[in-house]
């Protein structure tokens, strides 16, 4: 895929200049900052040898951590998909006081440092915190349980679904919907048959992004998770622990596993988007 490999035919002709320059900057920076370091990670992981890689990857503790990270992220993304859709709907369709404020607040997790979020969430959801104290009498514990992991992951993934779905909902407002209503479709039927289908790709993209972000989250989770091996220990923490036991290869193997899965996810999102763009004739 590099510019130098193909002499012609690798790109469509254009009268615009600067492809070489801009692609050059991009690839140089990409290589220096992202690709070479990641290559070091792969080499380190490979240095462990196939038998050991397999042993690390399939050890119960690794599997438990990966399961928590991926399942937790999946659940958190699902929660975000549901509430994010409702939130986007409310923000686009209804009027209420403070709407602009709410709209701005949705971006908070993008910008709030994860460590700050983690400490604040732990303080709130601990048994003596504002919310934790309300739940404690019912025997519901949030902080220091897998539920706490979920809370943090929901927090970091929240903006994605809203921000993906919002513009599409705005666009879909109007004519077809009115037509459906005039033709006698019930409101619920209109929502599910007319409004939601075009939103689906955006919803899916938001879901996958929230998921991808949550899988790797570290800063906000460790403060609230409890970090008990096999139970509330997330995969990034396991990497840190391996690192602190001087087990560089082990850390690299788990990191590589996570990385490959992340990359597959991102590729998936971009494919969804490319397909949607093509279908809407937008390029």
């Amino acid at each position, binding site marked *: 895929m590099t*510019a*130098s490999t193909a*002499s012609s035919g690798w790109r469509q002709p254009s009268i615009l200049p600067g*492809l*070489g*320059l801009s*692609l*050059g*900057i991009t690839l*140089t*920076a990409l290589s*220096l900052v992202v690709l070479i370091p990641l290559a070091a990670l792969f080499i380190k992981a490979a240095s462990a040898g196939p038998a050991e890689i397999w042993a690390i990857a399939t050890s119960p*503790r690794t599997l438990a951590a990966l399961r928590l990270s991926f399942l937790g992220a999946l659940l958190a993304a699902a929660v975000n998909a549901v509430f994010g859709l409702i939130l986007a709907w409310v923000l686009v369709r209804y009027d209420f006081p403070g709407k602009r404020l709410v709209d701005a607040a949705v971006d908070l997790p993008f910008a709030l440092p994860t460590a700050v979020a983690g400490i604040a969430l*732990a*303080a709130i959801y*601990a*048994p*003596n*915190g504002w919310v934790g104290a309300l739940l404690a009498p019912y025997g519901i514990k949030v*902080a*220091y349980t897998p539920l706490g992991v979920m809370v943090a992951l929901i927090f970091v993934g929240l903006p994605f679904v809203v921000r993906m779905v919002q513009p599409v909902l705005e666009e879909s407002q109007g004519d077809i919907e009115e037509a459906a209503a005039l033709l006698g479709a019930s409101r619920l039927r209109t929502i599910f048959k007319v409004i939601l289908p075009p939103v689906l790709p955006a919803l899916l993209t938001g879901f996958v992004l929230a998921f991808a972000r949550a899988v790797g989250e570290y800063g906000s989770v*460790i403060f609230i998770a*409890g*970090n*008990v*091996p*096999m*139970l509330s*220990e997330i995969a990034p*923490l396991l990497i*840190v*622990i391996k*690192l*602190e*036991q*001087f*087990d560089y290869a082990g850390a690299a193997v788990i990191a590589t596993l996570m990385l490959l899965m992340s990359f597959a996810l991102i590729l998936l999102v971009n494919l969804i988007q490319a397909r949607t763009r093509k279908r809407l004739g937008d390029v």
Partner: protein
Amino acid sequence: MSRPSFRRLVQSGLVLGAFSLCFGIVAGARAQTELLNVSYDPTRELYREINAAFIADWNARNAKKITTIRQSHGGSGAQARTVIDGLNADVVTLALAGDIDAIAQRSRKLPLDWQKRLPDNASPYTSTIVFLVRKGNPKAIKDWGDLVKPGVQIITPNPKTSGGARWNYLAAWAYAEKAFDKDDAKVRDYIGKLLANVPVLDTGARGATTTFTQRGTGDLLLAWENEAFLAKKEFGQDKFDIVVPSLSILAEPPVALVDANVDAKGTRAEAQAYLEFLYTPKAQAIIARNFYRPRNPEAADPKDIANFPKVDLVTIDGAFGGWAKAQPTHFGDGGTFDQLYKPAR
């Protein structure tokens, strides 16, 4: 394609230039008479006081002044790793000898027999493991035996990442060996039950203390003696009680010079003096005031010494054959901790 590739060359030159600029800034920022002490979590308050005293002491007697002693704190294992990975520590003051051994073995920046270079196993202060419970001791926890009762929640950091947690674990192990007369199956059963009562494993001693004191989680905190005293001081004498078990372990947090680093920086004399200062009466008094047990109690304020209860203490060398043996047996991959840790479902 020829023009763009030339442009790309220019461009990569620019990028490289930017990178080397970063290096230049850092190279220029190095000050001469600064020491870096890489330490573990609970020593922050101790070394803040020690550093001030040492700088005053050194600068009164030497022409080459020390401007600052920088501190870096974190879990003991994590700190050892950063030194192995190249952090330029002049001295390391970690929670256990095993972590400094790891630095010696992996980075070869100090000799393997580093522990013989200073008195008292290179540990100018000691501590032990005690229980911190909530005021009035509502769960009536008196000794290690009470820790495995159902419904008792124990807070301890993760022995994989925290030095203090390793001492906790070994103290419990030593008690069990004595209580069950070295019956291995019963010892393992006891430790397994104890671990099953642990709902939160923080990565460091400080995190565990915060979880217990500020988040109101757990009935008992397994803690360094100094950490337990400090927690009482910080959060109020009326909130927590310290329970001293019948038997505990003599924790020896060692200090060492990182030879390769001090030689590269030209700070050997200062760093060596810094470590030796820890053994002086002045430093020993500071040590006792910060709730560590001084090697030389006569130097300290008797009021501080009176804080320390008499405890039956086992040593790591006597009961476990030293860190070189205890570390892999208990905390290595597949060690007893891994075998016995079965989280509640």
